[in-house]
């Protein structure tokens, strides 16, 4: 059984009397120890998808429909009280800005011990020892001293290491990381990503990595979801998606990267911009920006079709596959 299973997830934000749909029928699952990447541009709904797993969507947002099953528990039917036992304990989160997630007026030790004692019946001494072990795990120099320091005394990279240590405190089954290295420099990003991958492997923790950086996804994850305007438009093994993208949006996203172009040549740009949530075009949401769009794309929402290991929601790919199949039977 999959560790996490999300079916037909529908999230809305109410604004001025009417509800805006942020997520439309999201389906995906995650195995134990698997590393999954969610990519997309801002406004695609990738953070909302991650936050809704732990029901961390604040008013006016709400989960309007769907099932979220984690290790046999139906998370979306749980009370706030029950959810708090899962949050931080079984599922941990890492956010983008480590300065915003750490409490500036408490020492790091106090924050780590507080988290442990909230979930386990242990003494402060035991909790301190666990905190120390985790700091060692994330390779922080002189961990003993860090416990008595405040967040502002550390650099950005060091703070993100602390955050990872806190996420690992209660040996979770799943870590949800929302743009964990976006605020960091490249050399620090490489270190943090290497550390996170290594820890997920050795501790058998599943990782859900939300990022806009296709390079990072390609380095870290085994499976990738590509999101656009509140829907998943392509999903499959990361290598297949990077090397042979099927959906025109995924192709455009990869082609637009400077590292895909010949140095000095023009980049391949996708015309236009992501639509806003209250103004999503009918049919396939990508159709106004798509060079292959037909009349059908403006009418019908495409369903997933499988090609190789990937699933794509695109009328063009579907038509092409149908043609190939017809050709094969002849």
């Amino acid at each position: 059984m999959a560790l996490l299973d999300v079916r037909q997830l529908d999230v809305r934000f109410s604004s001025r009397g009417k509800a805006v749909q942020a997520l439309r029928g999201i389906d995906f699952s995650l195995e134990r120890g698997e590393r999954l990447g969610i990519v997309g541009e801002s406004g695609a709904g990738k953070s909302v998808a991650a936050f809704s797993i732990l029901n961390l969507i604040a008013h006016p947002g709400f989960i309007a429909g769907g099932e979220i099953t984690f290790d046999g528990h139906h998370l979306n039917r749980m009370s706030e009280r029950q959810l708090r036992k899962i949050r931080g304990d079984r599922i941990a989160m890492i956010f983008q800005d480590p300065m915003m997630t750490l409490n500036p007026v408490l020492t790091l030790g106090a924050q780590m011990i507080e988290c442990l004692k909230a979930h386990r019946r242990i003494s402060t001494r035991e909790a301190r020892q666990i905190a120390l072990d985790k700091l060692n795990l994330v390779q922080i120099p002189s961990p003993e001293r860090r416990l008595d320091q405040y967040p502002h005394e550390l650099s950005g990279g060091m703070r993100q290491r602390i955050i990872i240590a806190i996420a690992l405190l209660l040996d979770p089954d799943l870590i949800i990381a929302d743009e964990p290295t976006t605020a960091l420099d490249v050399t620090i990003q490489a270190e943090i990503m290497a550390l996170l991958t290594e820890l997920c492997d050795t501790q058998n923790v599943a990782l859900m990595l939300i990022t806009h950086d296709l390079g990072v996804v390609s380095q870290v994850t085994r499976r990738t979801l590509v999101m656009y305007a509140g829907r998943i438009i392509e999903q499959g093994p990361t290598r297949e998606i990077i090397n042979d993208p099927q959906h025109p949006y995924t192709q455009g996203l990869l082609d637009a990267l400077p590292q895909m172009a010949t140095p000095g040549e023009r980049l391949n740009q996708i015309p236009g911009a992501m639509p806003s949530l209250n103004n999503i075009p009918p049919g396939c949401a990508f159709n106004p920006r798509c060079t292959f769009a037909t009349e059908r794309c403006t009418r019908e929402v495409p369903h997933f079709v499988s090609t190789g290991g990937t699933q794509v929601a695109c009328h063009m790919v579907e038509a092409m596959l149908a043609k190939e199949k017809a050709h094969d039977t002849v």
Partner: protein
Amino acid sequence: MIPSEITQPTDQATTSPRHDPSTLLSIRGLRKRFNLSGNWLEQLHFSKGRLTRRQEYVHAINGVDLDVARGEALCVVGESGCGKSTVARTVMGLISPSEGEIHFDGTRIDQLSAHALLPWRRRMQMIFQNPYASLNPRMTINRILEEPITFHNPSLNRGDVQDKVQEVMSSVGIDPEWGGRFAHEFSGGQRQRISIARALAVDPEFIVADEPISALDVSIQAQVLNLMRDAQQARGLTYLFITHDLAVVEHFATRVAVMYLGTLCELAPRDTLFSTPRHPYTQALLSAIPRLSDGHPTPIRLTGEVPTPVNLPSGCVFHGRCPYATARCREDIPALKTYGDARVACHALEEGRL
């Protein structure tokens, strides 16, 4: 085109000797310190029974020499805190250097008064990182774009100014019909196009772009980079492009300057830098780019953190994180030396240990 009505540079500005006409901008021995200590009362400290006055500085730039040739796109890369934005701002005269000289087209501009600097301000413009912060929310796009034109060409009549505004708007792909709208009505990519239009409105020769695409989405980054390249070809612009994104550098630059803690560690043409990075820091930086392709070498893992520019390390600024550092690196500051068409400041390379 606007007729050139700007008064020619006056004698206040001294022409620098030995000016190479192919060089548009040259920076010599640039240093910038920012005082951290506050007012004199805050500088007083009581220690060991005595009252002492202590001053602390952030050493943002520590002796940078750089030439920008006409028509090139020189990219300055480095991690946060390496002083790359400070270089951009000192060049533009937004902050004054603590030491050193800045020459633009043969004329020293760093000690000019604000008034004397005006004719040069028209020839150099800046694009900022965050288009949400750099456009005035209370002005319409027309007013944002008119302002620099009328300011630098006070004798133009309204019709000419309007024509010019429409011309720059269409050149960056913004419909001139939208001129009556406010900045908040546009998306991030469109706003950055408007900031580019504002920079182009006075027909500059030289544009300093400080992380112009870092706040934008991938598909929009490509649009803006293409626009900047088109403008360069159409108008013969020279760019000083500040960024931390090496993939963008590889695409956009003709020459690359790598900075670390306020010093230049490597300066090389793009192809040389990316095929044979010589400085250990450049090597680590290049290997850290998250590549799409599989089967690439694992990144060189640097140990430690970037030291603070308040207490600069002695010798080579990189020695604390460098795998090749020796006793000499901890004492002597390496100078830029020429290797092929690259200039690198590294003792290990000079001694042939690399």
